[in-house]
């Protein structure tokens, strides 16, 4: 059973690593933003999964904060790039 959970967590962590690699390597700035945005979304799912792993419901609140606020930074950079801020 624990092996299955480790498999799930490792799959998610591999996704985070690939997104961070794109954020480090991306040729243009939007590429980096896409990488960080993907990292945020995958991290939310991993946080919820880890709160199930630790068996603490209150840890889901951090994931909730990221789900609510994670897009505002991306929106700010996007509005800068279309000269809108």
């Amino acid at each position, binding site marked *: 059973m624990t092996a299955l959970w480790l498999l799930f967590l490792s799959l998610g962590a591999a996704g985070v690593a690939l997104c961070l690699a794109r954020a480090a390597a991306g040729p243009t700035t939007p590429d980096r933003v896409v990488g960080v945005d993907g990292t945020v979304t995958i991290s939310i799912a991993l946080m919820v999964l*880890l709160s199930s792993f630790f068996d603490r419901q209150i840890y889901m609140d951090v994931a909730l904060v990221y789900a609510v606020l994670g897009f505002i930074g991306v929106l*700010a950079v996007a509005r800068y790039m279309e000269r809108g801020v």
Partner: protein
Amino acid sequence: MIYIAILTVAMLIAGLAAYFFRDLIAAVVACAAVSLIASVLFYLLQAPDVAMAEAAIGAGLTTAIFVIAIRKTGRYEK
């Protein structure tokens, strides 16, 4: 435990990237990545209060304030 070590190294790399980028918008994105990884680290070390504060401030407010400051000065570092 190994995840914590890997995340710390990734955070160091992101911080160094924020130092070396000439394009300041890319540096802001690197700062956002540092904040995200710090929040995940606090979460893994079982400090949800600190992780939540880092998430609430680092996700939106600092990025936007940096972006407005760059808008008022200039995008590329000389």
